[in-house]
């Protein structure tokens, strides 16, 4: 009996310390979501303006055949940028991303394209290394707090590969879109060849006729890479916010589970203790009765 009590006490102690850790993780994640959301908000004006500028150039130039907007007739290879997190403890966050990336890979292979993965985040890197798959770009260390310089580095690598002779013909990105605290969806998008995403409200009437300094071609040359950087930066920011939201949710349910376990164990422990006391009492009473009977028999 005493052994069972001791065992339960030990388990309660260990579950309690686990609950403390998961609770702390939950609180940290909650505070970081707010920051990540603010960063997303702060990036909105630039995204809006650059999208506006790109559509302005594209609507003013009749024949756009910039290398970044032209789809090759016979695409042979596709690059896939997969945005995962550096740390786990985030429920199904990374599993969802990698599953979608696999689905995209199957789809692209079906179209006859060779797939080259570019991976962000330690979890995605180890996933690929474990399966000994070749990666063409590896980045880690900033998944929960990406800076624009990180996005620029990734965009540079992708654009260089896209422009190279034996490089990639299409670039897709797989990331987690942040809809709200409770909803995050995996998003699969093609970023090159470029399709400009129109701003939410389409401009009324004919867009104004722009003058370009120095020329439309030059403006486009420097504008398009910036636009791609901004798209990738947006993907990184949304992924970061989603990562924190996923971690918060995973840690909240872990804390809830731990508390439930503690409740069940405490009940079992009390039952065991009560049973032990009851047995001791009945043993004492039984012993006393036996003694009393023996004494009565003697007289």
């Amino acid at each position, binding site marked *: 009996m005493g052994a069972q009590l001791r065992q339960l006490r030990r388990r309660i102690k260990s579950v309690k310390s686990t609950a403390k850790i998961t609770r702390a993780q939950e609180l940290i994640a909650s505070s970081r979501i707010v920051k990540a959301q603010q960063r997303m908000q702060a990036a909105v004006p630039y995204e809006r303006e650059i999208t506006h500028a790109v559509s302005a150039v594209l609507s003013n130039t009749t024949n756009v055949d910039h290398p970044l907007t032209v789809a090759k007739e016979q695409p042979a290879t596709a690059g896939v940028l997969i945005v995962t997190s550096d740390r786990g403890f985030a429920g199904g966050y990374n599993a969802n991303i990698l599953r979608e990336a696999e689905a995209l890979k199957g789809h692209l292979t079906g179209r006859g394209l060779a797939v080259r993965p570019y991976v962000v985040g330690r979890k995605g890197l180890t996933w690929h290394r474990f399966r000994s798959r070749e990666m063409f770009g590896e980045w880690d260390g900033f998944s929960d707090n990406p800076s624009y310089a990180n996005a620029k580095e990734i965009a540079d690598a992708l654009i260089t590969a896209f422009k190279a002779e034996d490089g990639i013909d299409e670039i897709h990105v797989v990331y987690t879109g942040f809809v709200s605290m409770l909803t995050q969806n995996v998003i699969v998008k093609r970023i090159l060849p470029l399709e400009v995403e129109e701003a939410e409200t389409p401009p009324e009437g004919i867009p104004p006729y722009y003058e370009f*300094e*120095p020329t439309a071609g*030059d403006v486009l040359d420097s504008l398009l890479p910036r636009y791609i950087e901004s798209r990738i930066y947006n993907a990184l920011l949304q992924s970061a916010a989603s990562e924190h939201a996923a971690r918060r949710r995973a840690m909240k349910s872990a804390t809830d589970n731990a508390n439930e376990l503690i409740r069940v164990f405490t009940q079992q422990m009390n039952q065991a203790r009560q049973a032990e006391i009851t047995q001791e009492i009945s043993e004492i009473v039984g012993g006393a009765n036996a003694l009393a009977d023996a004494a009565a028999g003697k007289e």
Partner: protein
Amino acid sequence: MAKLRVGVVSPEREIWTGEADMVIAKTVDGEIGIMPNHAPVLGVLVEGGVLRVKRGNEGDLVAAVHGGFISVADNDVSILAEAAELGSEVDVARAKDALQRAQASIEADQEDADARLQAKRAAARLRAAGEEV
């Protein structure tokens, strides 16, 4: 008289928005001055340029703008900078230090493109802060 609505934005934050009478920026073709009712323009800005926003009585707003674009349409002026810093926010001592270091590495290696870029940026920050360079 009509006013310009000016926004200076970098990828990581909105740096300044407000109204102005005139905006002077430096594109790769040379300086460009924008006044109200200017024709739509889209220009590429130089690395390490200084942006000047004239606001009448409130005085000028000066910012160091590194690369990016200026887009003008319908009295809306947007400056999209890869990085930008208001003159009032520049840490002069640090910018001077950065300029000296960059110049030292240019002297050591004439081909050092990175240092040249650093020097340009530091000089722009100092000019934006009102220092002579």
